[in-house]
């Protein structure tokens, strides 16, 4: 199991790097999908089966397909050379690296991580999440429908030609 964790992590990081560095948008999307699938594996490892399923459905099934769809629609699949200047790219990499180090330092310094043992085993399932979602978080859940409607209206507004 520990091996599984390291393997999934390696896949995720490699795919994420490829998302950043590969030039073709289609390839970007494919790598991102791979990354997300590995993420779903992590969810299962963490005993969050419901999230794993929703993650695959929403991200891989809906969002990434939407990305692909837009790329195809806008005819961006041929590798257009859109690169920033070398200086910018190098500084971006350096900034990312510094950011990583600083965040690591911050997490190490600011708190100690204590895990609670033993784990409850059933809350990651649909029934466990559902109970919490429809009791404590009922109002935010219903409010999110409004968010969706406004996002939908907004997307349509942007999509119209003559506004």
């Amino acid at each position, binding site marked *: 199991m520990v091996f599984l964790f390291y393997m999934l992590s390696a896949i995720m990081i490699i795919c994420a790097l490829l998302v950043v560095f590969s030039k073709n948008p289609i390839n970007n999307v494919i790598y991102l999908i791979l990354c997300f699938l590995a993420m779903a594996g992590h969810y299962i490892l963490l005993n969050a089966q419901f999230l794993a399923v929703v993650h695959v459905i929403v991200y891989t099934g809906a969002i990434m397909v939407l990305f692909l769809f837009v790329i195809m629609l806008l005819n961006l699949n041929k590798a257009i050379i859109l690169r*920033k200047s070398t200086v*910018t790219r190098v*500084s*971006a990499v350096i*900034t990312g690296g*510094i*950011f990583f180090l*600083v*965040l690591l*330092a*911050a997490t190490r*310094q600011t708190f100690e991580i204590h895990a609670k043992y033993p784990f409850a085993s059933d809350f990651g399932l649909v029934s466990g999440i559902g109970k919490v979602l429809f009791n404590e978080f009922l109002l935010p859940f219903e409010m999110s429908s409004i968010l969706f409607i406004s996002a939908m209206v907004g997307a349509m507004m942007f999509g119209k030609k003559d506004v």
Partner: protein
Amino acid sequence: MVALISSIAWLVPAFPLLGFLITGLAKNRLKNNQAGIIASTLVSFSFITALFLFFSLRSSGQDSVTVTLFNWISAGDLNIPFAFLIDHLSITMMLIVTGVGALIHIYSIGYMHDDERVSSFFAQMNLFTFSMLLLVMGANYLILFIGWEGVGFCSYLLIGFWFKNPAFNYAARKAFVMNRIGDLGFILGIILVFFTFKSVSFTEIFSQAGALQAGAPMITLITILLLVGAVGKSAQIPLYTWLPDAMAGPTPVSALIHAATMVTAGIYMIARSSILYNLAPITLNIMIGLGLATAIFAAVIGLRQNDIKKVLAYSTVSQLGYMFLALGLGAYSSAVFHLTTHAFFKALLFLGAGSIIHAMGGEQDIRKMGGLRKKMPITYLTFLAATLAISGIPPFSGFFSKDLILTKAFENNPLLYILALGGALITCFYMFRLLYLVFFGSQRLSSAHPHESPRVMTIPLIILSVLSVFGGFLNIPELFGGKSDLGEFLHSAITSKVTEELSSSTEIGLIISSLALLGLIILMAYRTYVKRAVLPAADSESLSLFGKVVANKFYIDEVYTLLLEKPFGFLSDFFFNTIEKAVLDPAVDGIGTATSRLGNLVRKLQAGNMSFYLFAMVGGILLFIIFILIV
């Protein structure tokens, strides 16, 4: 009774304030005489309220009532309520201010009827009356100071009322600046008072002052500083030059400034602070000197003036000098008595002069008048009454008040008496010169068609002349079987110095000799200006040296210009041409150019480049986290 007094006292200043608000705010809607009628009515209401207060106070049996309206300033030790002090002194002043003020307001309806800014005029007059009432009613130095400044400001507005004439504007500015010099002393005096007594309220200060030693340096300093304020306001040497120039305003304004309000403020303030002044013999001696010098000096200048209002102005300065003399002698109630009678006859003189100027179509030069006696009988008779009063002919009011001051002077020092009497004789001479030149002889300006003024102007004249004639009976001395009523009345509010009484035979001798001299002077004036019909020299004619000096008012204005204005102007020039151009301008410009250059540099950061913004954002977050980590 006391409760009644406290509940209606605020009405006295409230009426003129209301009048100011109405006539000031609605000045474009008021037509013809409406503004004047409103203003006069409200000031009359104020007078009636003051009368009512007077009788209430008498029947209440109390000497003074403090009316606290609200707590005004409260900070640490400093606790100043907005309060009015109604006592015998302030009620006397209130009656003078509102009474004479109301008559002047009514007169102004006629005098100003064809001025285009008549509503503004009445608004400013009402504000003036309001400020003066605040001044005399205030229960502490700070409220007195509000009124003090308000009066100064309104006088600026009113003197410069015809502001289209630059000379009038200059006169208004001069009055303001001169007053400012006095005000500086006054402010410092108030600060020192607070510093010494930890209070500015009259009652508290005066109750504490009894414990102080006479002639203490602190009290001398305080009284001298307050005196500087009074000298500025009441036009004494060396700050008197604004008053003659204040003639630039409309004549009713001159009457208001000279008779009822403004110049009396200094006298009132010193009389109010009599307890402090009694402790400062040095200041009292200074006041005697100042008062006497001003009285004689101004009277001498008055001899050679040819503008009817200027003559009256110098006579005011001179009479104020007498009041200062009385104050300096410690005879505060005599000063207030002279102030009262002076308010009557000087208001009458100014209003009469206004009537004459009105009739002559704006002409103010007495050399061009003459023979008005037949044309304007009412004005003539009232003017004559006022002239007799100011000259001190019994039984007119001026006689009693001036005689009281002269007697006090004699008690102090016979030399003072002789000098003061000399001033009085000069006063008598130039007043009769004025009277004879204006009303006797033949009319010298053929183009004018003098006529008697309308009734709205003559009725105040008649009322004031009655007051001028009989005003002296308020305070008949014991010599004539009276009881010095006003002096006794004021006794509770003013602590006069007790001096040795003269024997009645000496007093009668003094009066008779002075009367004989006065008669001689009147005869002399009559012979010169009526019998021989001597006209004062025209401006172009050459005069003897002394005459020239007097006609030019001893060149005091020129001396001030040379001593103060020129060096100051030079200093200003230096700062403007050298310091400003060499130091200030480059500094200011430098700041400007530096800012715009920096802006030019920083501008490049704001190119609208999204990716740069992203970098900046990430950098900011990074710095923020690092900062938190380190700190």
